[in-house]
């Protein structure tokens, strides 16, 4: 009789959908809070350096003079401390997780200087 108990589970599994996903044909859906990787909205950054100071692994480097923000993707442990401490709220943690790679890349983001002419062109376009 006790044997029957597990047989019932087995039979149920035989006629139900698989418990696993058919990856990668059916990719994982991430939840809104999933801490995947850090993204920066470089336009809003003021290069205060708080994120790099708070980062427990020292994965972020901020160069104020060159207006450059860089992150070692494989040094980051996805803790979210930088996101929490940024005063301009220009960092966010978004899915998906970083992809496997052969090298350890450092990604750099430079804030583009807006030339006065470009600015006025933009204004012109906005007016049109």
């Amino acid at each position, binding site marked *: 009789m*006790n*044997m029957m*108990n*597990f047989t*019932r*589970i*087995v039979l149920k599994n035989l006629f139900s959908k698989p*418990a696993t996903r058919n990856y990668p044909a059916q990719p994982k859906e991430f*939840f809104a*809070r*999933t*801490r995947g990787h850090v993204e920066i909205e470089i336009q809003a950054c003021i290069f205060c350096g708080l994120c790099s100071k*708070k980062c*427990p692994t020292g994965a972020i480097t901020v160069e104020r003079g060159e207006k450059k923000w860089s992150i070692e993707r494989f040094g980051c*442990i*996805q*803790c*979210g*401390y930088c996101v*929490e401490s940024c005063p301009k709220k220009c960092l966010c*943690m978004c899915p998906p997780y970083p992809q496997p790679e052969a090298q350890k890349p450092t990604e750099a983001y430079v804030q583009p200087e807006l030339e006065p002419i470009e600015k006025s062109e933009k204004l012109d376009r906005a007016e049109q």
Partner: protein
Amino acid sequence: MSVRSVVPFGPQHPVLPEPIHLDLVLEDEKVIEAIPSIGFVHRGLEKLVEKKDFQEYVYVAERICGICSFMHGMGYCSAVENIMDITVPPRANYLRTIWCEMSRIHSHLLWLGLLADAFGFESLFMQSWRMREKILDMFEMSTGGRVIFSVNKVGGVRKDMDQEMLREFLKVFDGIEQDLKVLTKTFLEDYAVNGRLRDVGVLTRQQAHDLGAVGPFMRSSGIALDNRKLGYAAYPELDFEPITSDVGDCYARCDVRIREIFQSIDLIRQAAAKIPEGELAAAAKGFPQGEHFMRVEQPRGEAIYYVKANGTKFLDRVRVRTPTFANLPGMLETLKGCQLADVPILILTIDPCISCTER
């Protein structure tokens, strides 16, 4: 006449993913003595406290173990909060309690799966882990991480669970409870499972007491001690009693852990019904000065966090005593006189976590 021989067991072993090494002294098939050696996965996490300030160390503390990561983070934070005299807001306490119990459920389900795997019941192992998967999904939904949660901070928690999320979780727990009831029958009544677990590795009440066993390993020998009764987080406001068994064999350990899963589900229900509105964290101003011992009940038993602070942002010392370390003498005692084939199961029934023991 029987011949004595020594069989090395581990640190790499097909049935036991934990890196512990034992020299088993055998007389024919019977184990006479087991001599342990540990230290294969030492990572120096306690030393790191000199390099990371006390806020950053939360992230190190929760990396001590991948299964009880929430409670490691919480134990460390509570110790620092006690030193700094911070009162954690009630909502944060309740959230911590819910996450703690979720950790306990997923740890016990993991253990049940490993146990099934150790006695060769592969499909039972899959069933247990399938249930565990739902809990990991809930963790990801509420904290953003499946293994490392990063929701604790000195003073409270970082993320909230709203009513809707809690309701959804409770529904999932209802399903898990139903599924587990069905699976319990197999774990506790199946003929083959009984044959492998009954009367194997008996630890008497007196032995458990003398050898300083902790957690479910101790409770299944009849000692009703549970650190949750010490009253950290929201446990003083919840209604529960330590779960025990008087038998002390492997079957009793399995039984106690299964009943603890049901108890944890009940505790989550109680906590979800009582959770108050309010702040998530109190501000941690200044630097800690002083020392504190914090004791928490992890899925595997009592863990102790000792923190000594000197008034700067770097702490002097952090010491963690993990439950597996306390359970090793008891385990060695149960190994004496057992059959060689039972060794993996016996080691497994203390739910060893060697990487947190060695840190």
